[in-house]
C-alpha cells in the first residue's frame, strides 16, 4: 500500500507521523474486513441500490425556488471578487 499515493488521490496532507500511523491502521482494518472473502459470492449480483427504484427523473423545467442569488452563492466562500469565487491560480 502506497500511503503517499492514496493521500494524494484523496487530496489530503498527512504528516510523516500520520502516514506511519495510518499505514499500520489501514493494514489492520483491511485485514479485519477481509473476512468477507469467507463468503461465496460467485454469480451474486452486487447491490448498489436497496430501494429497488428505477427511472427516477425530473421534468425539464426551471425551478426558481432553489436558485440562489449571487450574494447567497458566494456568501460562504473564503475569497470572492466581483461575484466570482477566487482560488490561487491552478496554472
Amino acid at each position: 500500500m502506497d500511503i503517499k499515493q492514496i493521500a494524494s488521490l484523496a487530496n489530503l496532507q498527512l504528516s510523516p507521523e500520520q502516514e506511519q500511523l495510518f499505514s499500520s491502521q489501514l493494514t489492520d482494518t483491511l485485514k479485519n474486513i477481509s473476512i468477507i472473502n469467507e463468503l461465496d459470492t460467485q454469480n451474486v449480483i452486487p447491490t448498489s441500490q436497496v430501494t429497488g427504484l428505477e427511472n427516477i427523473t425530473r421534468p425539464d423545467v426551471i425551478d426558481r425556488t432553489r436558485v440562489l442569488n449571487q450574494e447567497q452563492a458566494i456568501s460562504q466562500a473564503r475569497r470572492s471578487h466581483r461575484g466570482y469565487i477566487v482560488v490561487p491560480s491552478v496554472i
Partner: protein
Amino acid sequence: MITYEPVIGFEIHVELKTLSKMFCGCPADHFGKPPNSQTCPVCLGLPGALPVPNAKAIDWCLKLGLALGCQVNLHSKFDRKNYFYPDLPKGYQISQYDQPFCHSGHLALLSGKNIRITRVHMEEDTAKMQHTEINGEKLSLIDFNRSGVPLVEVVTEPDFSSSDEAVEFLKEIQVIVRDLDISTADMEKGSMRLEANISMRPQGQTKLPEYKVEIKNVNSFRFIKKSMDFEQSRQTQLLNSGVSPVQETRGFNESKGETVSQRRKEQAHDYRYFPEPDIPPFVFSPHYIESIRRTLPKLSSVNRQELSDTYGLSTANAYIICSDHKMYTYFIHLASTMPDKTKYISDFIINKRYGEKFPETPEKLLALINESQNSFQIDPKILSEKVSNILSQYPQAVSDYQSGKIQARSYLIGQVKKSLGNVETAQISMIIKELYG
C-alpha cells in the same frame, strides 16, 4: 525513411439546450449571465445537496445515440468520476462509466468509410474558470453558472486516417446535432467542444501506437485541422529522429499555428468510478426506445441525398440548402411547382443568400429570376439547350449569322434575352459560337 500515417480519434462534448441543468432546476442557459447568479445547492455542491436527473436531457442523449446508429443499453446508470479540481464542486463528476446510455454506433463519410462510434453518454459540465492577476497575485476566478449543465459525450474509435476525414466527420456531427435541435453546437460559444487524440504509426501497421497526444481547447474546424496537421508533422519529425512523442495534452496557439504543451500537473488518472448511490438505475423498455426513435427527424444527410438524386443539385448546393431548415422547406416547395428550374432556383436562393425573407410565391421568384438586374450565370449546358431551342425559331437569322452578318449576332442575342431575361451577353455569345460556328 519510414512513412507514418496518423491515427486519430475524437471526444466531442455537446452542451444540450435544455431549459434546466442536468441534476437541478437551475437555468441551463448560462451564456453572458452575471457570475454565480444561476446556481443552487445541487450544482454548487453544497453539503447535503442531491442530484435528480433531467428526463429530457436523457431522451436527447438517446436521440443522438440513435441518430448515430448506436445500440441503447436497456440497463444503464450514472457513476461517480472522482477527482479534485476547483471547477468541480463536488470533487466528483456525475458521468457514466461501464453502462453508458448508448454504444457501438457509426457514421459513414462521403467516401463510404465508416467511422465507429464507441459510446454516447451523459455527464454534467464543470464550472468556468478564468485566470487573472490581481495586485500581482495570480488567481483563478470561478463561475459556477455552467456547473451542472447537461453534456452529451460522443467518443469515436481512432478510425480517422487524415485530418480531412476528421473535419468532415466533426462537421457532420454538428449538422446532426442541429437537425435534432438538441444543441446550438456552436464551437465559439463552447456548446460543442472537441478533443482530438492523435498519434502516428508506420504506414500499413494496424496496431495502435503506444502513446497518444490529446489536443484540447481548439474551438473552430479550421484550427482543429491546423492543429492535427501540425501534430502530424511534429510527431513524424520526432519519430524519424528516433524519439517517441511524449503522451501529453496540448493546446493550439492560433497566431503561431502550432500546438503547445499545456504544462498542467499530471494527475494520477485513477477516477475510482463507482455507481452513483444518489440516483437509482435506469431500465428502458424496447418500446420506449422505439418511441424515441420515432421522434427522430429526417436527417440532413438523407435530405442531401434526395436533393442530389431527385433534383440534380450539386453536393455543395445540397449541403448549403439542407443546413438551413427554412431554405430547405422553401426550396422543396418551389422545386415541386417548377421541377424543371431546380438548378436555377438553388443557385438563385444560395447566391442571393435569402435569410429570413423569401419571395412569397414561386411566380414572384421566377419573375425575379427573369428580371434580375444583376445578370447571373446559368448552367452552361442548360443555357445551351435553351438557346438552341429559342434560335431554332429564327433559321434565317442563324444563317445570316453564319454568313458573317454582324447585325445577325446582335439580333440572335436579343431574341435570347427577350425569352430568358438578363443573361450574360458573353455567355450567350459563346454558346452561339459553339452552336453555329
